[in-house]
């Protein structure tokens, strides 16, 4: 097999997001299955295989040690009762049964879903708006890019400190705005739903990372398409909806998937704001907080492992579901449109 044909089977270069999603699942450099496969590799191929494996060996070691081992370990711990000291005791599926009936698991799960359902779509819109702003052809665009990205540099815990003040009924900016519409004061952080909304707001300031990935996607759209659209008489709005958005769809999907994965694991903001309690009324008790509490507050590492495995399965399931539903909506082919 020649090098050229291998090239053709590569996942095409493109921006980060596009290529995850553009790579067709069965495409590879292997010859078609109908052709009997030669047992012997050419000398050059063997050499390349050896070299390639050598170069990716750090990743292979990392995969085995930092991913393979923990996943297997987590799954086996999840069938035990284990305090972190002494030896684990086998309890079968007991932890999973407990998890499914534990009212706090459902509470934490519904809190987390509530958060994800608001935060993820909102973050997509904000990141897209930022990316468009970052892509404007104005002289000082570098400044805007820096400013929009800057809040993403603030660690979640410091951001949470800032927002504790922002949201304060008397001194906070938020209440100054609310007072225009409302007579009484509200303490967002003192309300079980409000505290979730507050955490949604805080995390939105970190939209810069997703925006940079959108920006990469925006700059990937061929200019000729816009020029053609202009010739056809399409205005800027029309261009956005019929060119920009469809061509960005793989990037949107990428940011959606990573956004969901991040939202399911929301932890730091809630941990800092509630000092680890998840109060008021367990309104900010997110799944990861409860997992952490079980692991390190109650020393129930087996149960916490079961919770972790469940989260992994749910996350994977959601990712697959999103892939499935998005299949018709996502446009991978730049040239065809």
């Amino acid at each position, binding site marked *: 097999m020649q090098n050229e044909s291998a090239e053709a089977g590569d996942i095409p270069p493109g921006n980060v997001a596009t*290529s995850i999603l553009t790579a067709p699942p069965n495409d590879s450099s292997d010859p078609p299955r109908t052709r009997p496969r030669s047992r012997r590799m050419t000398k050059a191929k063997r050499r390349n295989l050896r070299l390639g494996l050598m170069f990716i060996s750090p990743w292979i070691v990392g*995969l085995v040690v930092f991913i393979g081992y923990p996943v297997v370990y987590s799954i086996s711990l999840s069938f035990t009762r284990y305090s972190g000291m002494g030896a684990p005791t086998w309890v079968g599926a007991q932890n999973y049964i407990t998890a499914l009936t534990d009212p706090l698991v459902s509470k934490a799960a519904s809190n987390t879903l509530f958060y994800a359902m608001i935060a993820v779509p909102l973050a997509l819109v904000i990141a897209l708006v930022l990316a468009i702003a970052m892509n404007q052809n104005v*002289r000082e665009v570098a400044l805007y890019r820096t400013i929009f990205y800057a809040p993403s540099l*603030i660690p979640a815990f410091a951001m949470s400190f800032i927002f504790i003040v922002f949201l304060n009924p008397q001194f906070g900016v938020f209440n100054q705005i609310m007072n225009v519409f409302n007579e009484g004061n509200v303490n967002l952080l003192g309300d079980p739903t409000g505290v979730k909304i507050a955490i949604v707001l805080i995390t939105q300031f970190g939209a810069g990372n997703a925006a940079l990935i959108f920006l990469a996607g925006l*700059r990937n759209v061929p200019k000729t398409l816009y020029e053609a659209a202009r010739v056809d008489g399409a205005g800027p709005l029309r261009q956005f909806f019929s060119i920009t958005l469809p061509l960005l769809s793989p990037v949107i999907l990428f940011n959606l998937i990573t956004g969901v994965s991040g939202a399911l694991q929301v932890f730091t903001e809630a941990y800092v704001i509630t000092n680890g309690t998840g109060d008021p009324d367990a309104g900010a008790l997110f799944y990861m907080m409860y997992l952490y509490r079980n692991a390190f507050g109650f020393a129930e590492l087996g149960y916490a492992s079961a919770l972790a495995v469940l*989260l992994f399965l749910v996350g994977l399931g959601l990712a697959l579901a999103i892939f499935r539903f998005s299949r018709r909506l996502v446009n991978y082919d730049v040239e065809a449109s």
Partner: protein
Amino acid sequence: MSTPLDQLSKDSAKALEKAEHRHELDRRPDGTPRSWWSRITARAVMIALSLLFLLPIYWMVVSALKTNEELAQFPPTLFPRSWEFGNFADAVTAMPFLQFFANSAIITVSVVVLSVLSNFVVAYGFACIDWPGRNKIFYLVIATLFLPFPVTLIPMFDLWARLGLVNTLFPLIIPAAFASAFYTFLLRQFLLQIPKDMINAARVDGAGEWTILWRVVFPSCRPALGTVAIFAAVAAWNDFMGPLIYLQDESVQTLSIGLQSFRSAHDQDVAFNQLMAASFLVILPLLILFFVFQRYFIRGITIGGFK
């Protein structure tokens, strides 16, 4: 002295330079010039957005500079009446700030160097060497992007405990030496852009893969490496959960966790201006880093998308 290899690396850098998109100022995506009105609106929107996104940092700085009495004032003042630069000194002395800073810096610098090196080498293996099955293996890299962090939390802790490395900085540093899915992916996309002819020409000249990696490929992918460096630096500097679990003694604590414990230790007694001052000092190195490397950073992430 100019060897053919040097020439090659210069060529690759030039090719890259050419690839860089020169936007024409004040034009729409479709190339038409913007009207005066549209230019003003666009700027107005962006300035408004900028103000919104500057708000947290502004608030942080202003709070850090106020006296506690002024902080408690209603309505809040937009600028400190007296500039209490002493708050910064107080914040630094109220906790072992320098110790925390040094630990954060050690972790961050080590993680950045190890991440850049390991991901670069691995990405080279995936992008520039053509070996059978590499794409199938690459799907595995992508799959690990979706693995949630908690699954590895407890076993990894156990592993480090068994190695006797809990309460040292190693658990936070060593994993960076073994490449991570996201950065490998990012770099691979970038390396695939490099003209194959250039690499093949070097091979014909008898250069080994290691030499090609450093002499041909490295010069042209500095921006992408810069991108990885900044992403890795931000992640390591701001890491919260890792230090929370692995570091106990004050002598090994980092800024992120030190600040949180400063707050909970002084729950009855918290001086908010000092907290803000300390927080600002925490993000300051990142801000500076971003300003300095911003140009490379944006280009690094964007250039992967150029056709």
